[in-house]
C-alpha cells in the first residue's frame, strides 16, 4: 500500500463529459489516459510521477469497469517492454517513469520498440526530474528521443494542454507507427489546475482479443534484414508522417504579433516561465498577451522545419529557450537555417546558461541580453525588474547566511535504516574506514551527516555491482549497500548474481523495509503486506540463496544495534570467501505508523490494555556532548537549552514525535555512550492486576525513597 491514499482523487477519474476536473497535473494525465481508451498501463514509481502509479493502484474499480489492465512493473525496462503489446495489435498502452534515470534503464526495450514500430498508440509519460527538487543526475531525456526516433512532446504546463497532448500523443503514435514520449517537469507534475473532462472510453480493441487472435509479422522484429528496413522506414515514412501530423493538428503554437524584429522559440514546458520573464520586462501580460512573437514547441521532437522557417522569416534574430545541455534544438536550428540559407541570427545558450534550471530570473537576464543586442527599443518602457540583490547584499542578510543551516532530506523519525548505519559507524570505529558503495533509495541518506558513509552511487540495484572491481586480496573488504527496491529492480541479477558468480569477497547489505519506501511506500515482491492483486511475501533470503549465495544472515529487527554491529564485524572478518550478504529487515516507520496508529487509537478507545513506548533523556544526566545525535540524526532527538547555570551546552531531548523505535537506547548501549536515555512504557487502560502491582511497587519504592530523602540534608528546589 502506498504512502498516500488517493481514494478521493480516484473519484475524479470517473468524471464525465462537461464536468470540471480540479487537481494535480499528474492526475490530469491519468484521467486523460482513460479518456483516450487506453488498454493497459504500466510503469515504475519515482518522483515526480509516483502519484500516477499510486492513483492507478488505488483505482482498481474504475480500471476494472473500463477493462484497463494496470501493472506495477518490476523496472522501467519491464514497463518499456510492456509496450510491445502495441506492436502488432491496435491497443493503446501507456507507461511511466522518472527520467532520465528510468529511461536509462528502459533504453534497451525502447530502442527495439522504436525500431520495429507500433500499431496501437504507445505513450511513455516521463517525469523529467531536472532542476530544483530533483534527486538524480541532471540530464535531458531529449537525447533518447533523437537517438531512437521517438517523438517527444513537451506541452505547455497547464492541465488542459496536458490532457490534450495525451490524446493527441496516442493519435500521433498511431499515425506514425512510432512510440511517443510525453515529458512533464517536476512542477508540472504537481501543478494544481483544472480542465473540462470527457467521458472515459473503453479500449476499442482489447488485450483479450489480441491474445485469442495472435498475429505476427517478421518484419516488425529487430533482426536483419528487417532492422535495416526499419531504419529506412523511420526516416522515409514515419518521420514525414509525424511532421505532417504535427503541422496539420497545429500542435505547436504561435502567440503575440504575427511579425516583429525578433522572436522567441521555446519548448512548451518553459512557456509559463518565458511569459513571466516577458511580463517583468513589460513585454507581456498575465493573460498571455505578448509584444514579442512566440513560437511554442509543444512537440520538442521532431522539429517542424517549415514552421521554424516561416517563424524566422523577416526576423533579424530569434532566441531559442531550451533548458539543460546539450543545446540540441539550437544546434538543429542553426543547421536548418544554414541549409536553407536564411540569415536570421540564432541566439540561445550565448545569452542563457548552458546548464541549470531556467527560472524567471534566469530567463529575464537572457532576454535582456538578447534584446539589447537585437531589439534595443523594446526595452524602452521597462518597468523595474524584481531584484532582491540590494537586500541580499546587506550585512544583516550576510550574517543570516552564517546562521541558517542546510536542511537536506534524511531518515524519518524512527526509520529502521538509522540503526543499520549507526551499527556500521560503530563497526568502522573498531575496524577502520572501509570503501562503501551506496545505491539508490532512502538508505542513500547515509552519505549525509551525521553518518557520512558511502562513496559512490551508480544506479538502482547497482550498489554491490559497483564494488565489483574491489575483489582482490586486501586487508579490508568493500561494503555495498542496496535497498529492497533496488534488489528486485535490478540488483538480484546485476549485483547479487554477479557477486556470487565472480566470488566477490565483499559484504553486501540488503536494506529491507518491506516497501519501495523512497518512492512513496509501494509494494514490491518482498513486501510483507497481503496484497490481493499481487504476490507479495517473497523472501529476499530465499532469492539470494537461490542464486547461489552461501553466507547469508537475516536480521529481523534492525534496531538491534549490537547484533547489527556484530554481524558486520563477522562479515568483515570471516575467513569465508564470496559475498557475505546481510539482509537487514524492519518495516518502514512511515508506513508502519500509518498502519499501526489507527489500530492503537481504536484499541485505546475500546478499553483494551495497550502499551505505548517513548524515549526520553534525563537532562541531569546528559552532559551535552551529543554523541548520541551523531549516531542518529533522528528528527525527534533534538536539543534543549536548560536553565542550569552550571551547564554550558544544550542537552539532548526527545520530543513528543518519538515513536519509541528503540534506536536511542540500543545505540547508547552498544556504543557505551551514556546512561541518560530511558524508555517509558505507558500502559493505557491498565488492568486491575496492573494497578494492584503498581500500587504495591509504589508503596515499597516510595517508602525507600522517603527513607533516604528524610535522612538527607538538601536545599528545597
Amino acid at each position, binding site marked *: 500500500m502506498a504512502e498516500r491514499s488517493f481514494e478521493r482523487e480516484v473519484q475524479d477519474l470517473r468524471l464525465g463529459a462537461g464536468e470540471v476536473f480540479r487537481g494535480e497535473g499528474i492526475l490530469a494525465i491519468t484521467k486523460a489516459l482513460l479518456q483516450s481508451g487506453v488498454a493497459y498501463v504500466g510503469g515504475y514509481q519515482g518522483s515526480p510521477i509516483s502519484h500516477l502509479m499510486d492513483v492507478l493502484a488505488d483505482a482498481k474499480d474504475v480500471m476494472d469497469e473500463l477493462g484497463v489492465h494496470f501493472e506495477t512493473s518490476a523496472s522501467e525496462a519491464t514497463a518499456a517492454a510492456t509496450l510491445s503489446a502495441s506492436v502488432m495489435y491496435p491497443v493503446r498502452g501507456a507507461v511511466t517513469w522518472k527520467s532520465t534515470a528510468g529511461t536509462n534503464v528502459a533504453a534497451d526495450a525502447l530502442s527495439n520498440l522504436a525500431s520495429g514500430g507500433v500499431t496501437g498508440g504507445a505513450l511513455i509519460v516521463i517525469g523529467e526530474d531536472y532542476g530544483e527538487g530533483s534527486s538524480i543526475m541532471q540530464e535531458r531525456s531529449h537525447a533518447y528521443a533523437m537517438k531512437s526516433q521517438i517523438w517527444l512532446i513537451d506541452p505547455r504546463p497547464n492541465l488542459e494542454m496536458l490532457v490534450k497532448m495525451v490524446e493527441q500523443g496516442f493519435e500521433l503514435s498511431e499515425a506514425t507507427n512510432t512510440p511517443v514520449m510525453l515529458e512533464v517537469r517536476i512542477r508540472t507534475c504537481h501543478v*494544481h489546475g483544472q480542465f473540462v473532462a470527457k467521458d472515459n472510453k473503453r479500449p476499442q480493441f482489447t488485450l483479450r482479443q489480441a491474445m485469442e487472435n495472435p498475429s505476427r509479422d517478421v518484419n516488425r522484429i529487430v533482426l536483419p534484414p528487417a532492422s535495416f528496413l526499419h531504419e529506412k522506414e523511420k526516416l522515409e515514412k514515419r518521420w514525414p508522417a509525424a511532421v505532417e501530423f504535427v503541422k496539420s493538428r497545429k500542435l505547436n503554437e504561435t502567440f503575440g504579433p504575427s511579425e516583429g*524584429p525578433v522572436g522567441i522559440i521555446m519548448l512548451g514546458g518553459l512557456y509559463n516561465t518565458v511569459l513571466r520573464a516577458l511580463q517583468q520586462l513589460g513585454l507581456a501580460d498575465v493573460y498571455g498577451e505578448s509584444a514579442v512573437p512566440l513560437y511554442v514547441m509543444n512537440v520538442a521532437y521532431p522539429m517542424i522545419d517549415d514552421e521554424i522557417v516561416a517563424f524566422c522569416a523577416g526576423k533579424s534574430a530569434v532566441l531559442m529557450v531550451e533548458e539543460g545541455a546539450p543545446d540540441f534544438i539550437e544546434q538543429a536550428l542553426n543547421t536548418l537555417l544554414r541549409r536553407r540559407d536564411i540569415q536570421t541570427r540564432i541566439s540561445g545558450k550565448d545569452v542563457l546558461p548552458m546548464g541549470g534550471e531556467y527560472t524567471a530570473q534566469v530567463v529575464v537576464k537572457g532576454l535582456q541580453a538578447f534584446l539589447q543586442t537585437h531589439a534595443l527599443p523594446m526595452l524602452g518602457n521597462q518597468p523595474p525588474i524584481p531584484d532582491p540583490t540590494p537586500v541580499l547584499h546587506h550585512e544583516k542578510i550576510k550574517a543570516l547566511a552564517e546562521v541558517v543551516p542546510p536542511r537536506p532530506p534524511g531518515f524519518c523519525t524512527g526509520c529502521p535504516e538509522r540503526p543499520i548505519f549507526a551499527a556500521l559507524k560503530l563497526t568502522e570505529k573498531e575496524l577502520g574506514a572501509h570503501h562503501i558503495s551506496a545505491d539508490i533509495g532512502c538508505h542513500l541518506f547515509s552519505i549525509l551527516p551525521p553518518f557520512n558513509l558511502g562513496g559512490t552511487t551508480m544506479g538502482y540495484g547497482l550498489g554491490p555491482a559497483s564494488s565489483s572491481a574491489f575483489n582482490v586480496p586486501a586487508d579490508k573488504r568493500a561494503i555495498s549497500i542496496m535497498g529492497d527496491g533496488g534488489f528486485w529492480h535490478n540488483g538480484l541479477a546485476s549485483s547479487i548474481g554477479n557477486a556470487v558468480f565472480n566470488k566477490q569477497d565483499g559484504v553486501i547489505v540488503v536494506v529491507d523495509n518491506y516497501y519501495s519506501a523512497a518512492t512513496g511506500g509501494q509494494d514490491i515482491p518482498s513486501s510483507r503486506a497481503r496484497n490481493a492483486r499481487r504476490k507479495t511475501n517473497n523472501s529476499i533470503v530465499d532469492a539470494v540463496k537461490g542464486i547461489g549465495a552461501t553466507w547469508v544472515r537475516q536480521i529481523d529487527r534492525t534496531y538491534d544495534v549490537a547484533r547489527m554491529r556484530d554481524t558486520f564485524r563477522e562479515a568483515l572478518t570471516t575467513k569465508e570467501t564470496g559475498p557475505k550478504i546481510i539482509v537487514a529487515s524492519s518495516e518502514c516507520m512511515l508506513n508502519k505508523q500509518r498502519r499501526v496508529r489507527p489500530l492503537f487509537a481504536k484499541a485505546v478507545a475500546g478499553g483494551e490494555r495497550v502499551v505505548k513506548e517513548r524515549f526520553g533523556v534525563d537532562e541531569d544526566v546528559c552532559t551535552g556532548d551529543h554523541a548520541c545525535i551523531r549516531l542518529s540524526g533522528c528528527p525527534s532527538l533534538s536539543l534543549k537549552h536548560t536553565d542550569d547555570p552550571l551547564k554550558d551546552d544544550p542537552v539532548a531531548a526527545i520530543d513528543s514525535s518519538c515513536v519509541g523505535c528503540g534506536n536511542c537506547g540500543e545505540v547508547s548501549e552498544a556504543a557505551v555512550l551514556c546512561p541518560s536515555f530511558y524508555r517509558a512504557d505507558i500502559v493505557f487502560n491498565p488492568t486491575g492486576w496492573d494497578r494492584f502491582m503498581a500500587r504495591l511497587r509504589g508503596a515499597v519504592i516510595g517508602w525507600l525513597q522517603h527513607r533516604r530523602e528524610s535522612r538527607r540534608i538538601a536545599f528545597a528546589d
Partner: protein
Amino acid sequence: MSNGGENGLKRLSREKPLSIAILAMGGQGGGVLADWIVEVAESQGWVAQSTSVPGVAQRTGATIYYIETLPPRDGVPPVLSLMPTPGDVDVVMAAELMEAGRSVLRGLVTPDRTTLIASTHRAYAVAEKERPGDGTGDPVVVADATDFAARRVIAFDMEQLAVKNGSMISAAMLGALAASDALPFARSAYETVVGAGAKGASASLKAFAAAYDRTRSAPREAPRPPTPKRLDALPSHAGHPELDRLVARIRGEFPAEAQSLLFAGVKRAVDFQDVAYANEYLDRVGSLAALDRAHGGQDRHFALTCEAAKYVAVAMAYDDVIRVADIKVRASRFARLRNEIGAKPDQIVHSTEYLHPRAEEVCGALPAGLGAFIEARPALYGALDRFVNRGRRIDVRRLGGFLQLYLVSGLRTMRRGNLRHGREVAHREAWLARAIEVLPKNYDLAVEVLRCRRLVKGYSDTHSRGLSKFDRVMAMVPKLAGRDDGAQWLERLKRAALMDEAGTALDGAIKTVETL
C-alpha cells in the same frame, strides 16, 4: 516594425497575480496549507495555481510550495508561473524559524512587498545538533534579518499554538494568513474551507481561530534567545541550620558578583555528596577568590572567582555511576518523567534505563586500593570486564530494578574513598594549578583556563575523548601565557574543540597557535 513593441505594450494588462510561497520541512503539512489557500481562492471565484517540488525533500528536508492567484477576466485563463521569482513575492509563509531565514536568503522576502508569516519555533537541523558544543543558530540574527527584509513580519510560535489546540501547524499558519489581510478574502471563506476537511476539522478550526486572534493582537513575538540560566538569589532561610551556614559563608566570604553562581555550586555539591562536600567546595573556591583579589580581580568583576564558582562545582560533581543511579531512583525524577512523557493519572508508567557498566566504572566505584589492585592486573581486570561489560536494561519501577540502582546510589557514603574520586581530585587540582600558575602573568588567560573545563563531559569513550581534547588544549597554555591575546587564542582553541567529534577543527587551531 520597430513600433511593434510599443503597439504591443498598449494592449497589455497591468494585472499581477498575488504570489504566496510556503517554506516547510517534509512532514509539516505544507501541501495541506497550499491546498487550503487554493481552495479559499477558488471558492471566491479567483483563479489559483499551486505547485511544489517535494521530491525526496518529503523526508524531513526543506521544501517549497508556490501559489499564484488572481481574479479571472472574461474567460481568459491567466498564464501563471510555476515558481517564485526572488523579489516578486507577496506572502512568504515559513513553517519554522530557520526556514524563514532561508526564504530571506533565497531573495523571496523584500521590503517593498513581502508579508512574512513565520513560526518562530525551532526544529534543529542535523548540522546544528551534531556539534559536541552548542551549534544552534542564533534566533536574534534571524529576527534582525527578517525585520529588515520584509515589509511586514508576523512571527510567533505557531507550532506550539497548533499543538495546544490539538491541531497541526498548517491550520495555525492559515489563521495567521487570514488575519494578515494579505489576501482579500474574508475570515469566513477560510473557515468554510477548513471546516469542510474530513477529520480533525474542529481542531483545525480551533487552531485557525487562535492563530487569527493572536495575529490580530500580538503579531510579532520578540526573538527568544536560548532559555536564560537560572540564577537564584541567596535565600534568607534554607530550611536547615547547616544549609543556612553555607549560605552565610557565601554571603560573608565572597564578592557579590559570584554569589548566585556559588549558590548554584553549593546546591550541586550538597546534592552530589553532602554538606561537608559543599563546605569543601567553598574552601576551594575561597582560596581561588583570595588569589583573585590579590591579582586585581576587583577591577575585573571577579571573573576568576565567578568562573571558579561555576567550574569547580562542575568538576567536583563529576558524572559517576553513583550520581547516575542516585538521580534515577529519586521520587522527584519519577514525577518529572511522568510529566515529560505526558502520562495521564490513570496510566501506569514503566521506565527502562539503558546502562552499560564496564570494569572501569566498577573499579572506579571501589575503594581506591582495591580498585587500583584490580586495574594493575590485566587478567583480573579482563575477567571482571567480561563479567560486567554488557548492556543492562533496568526497569526502576519494578522492585528488582529499583533496588539495583538504589544500592549503587548508596555507595555515595563511601565515594570519597573510591578510586574515581582520587583521580578526579588529582585532575581537578592539576587544572586549577595551571590556572593559578598563569594568573600572575595573565589574568584573562587564567580565567579562560578555568572555562576549558567545559570540554570535559560525557561518559566512557565520550569522556575520554573530552579529556584528551582538554589535555591538548591545556598543553597550549604555556605557549600563550606571555601573550596579551593569549585568552582569546585559548578561547578559540576551546571553541574549535567543540566543533566536531574527531577534533579536526582543533587540529587546525592548534597548528595555527603553534605558528604564532
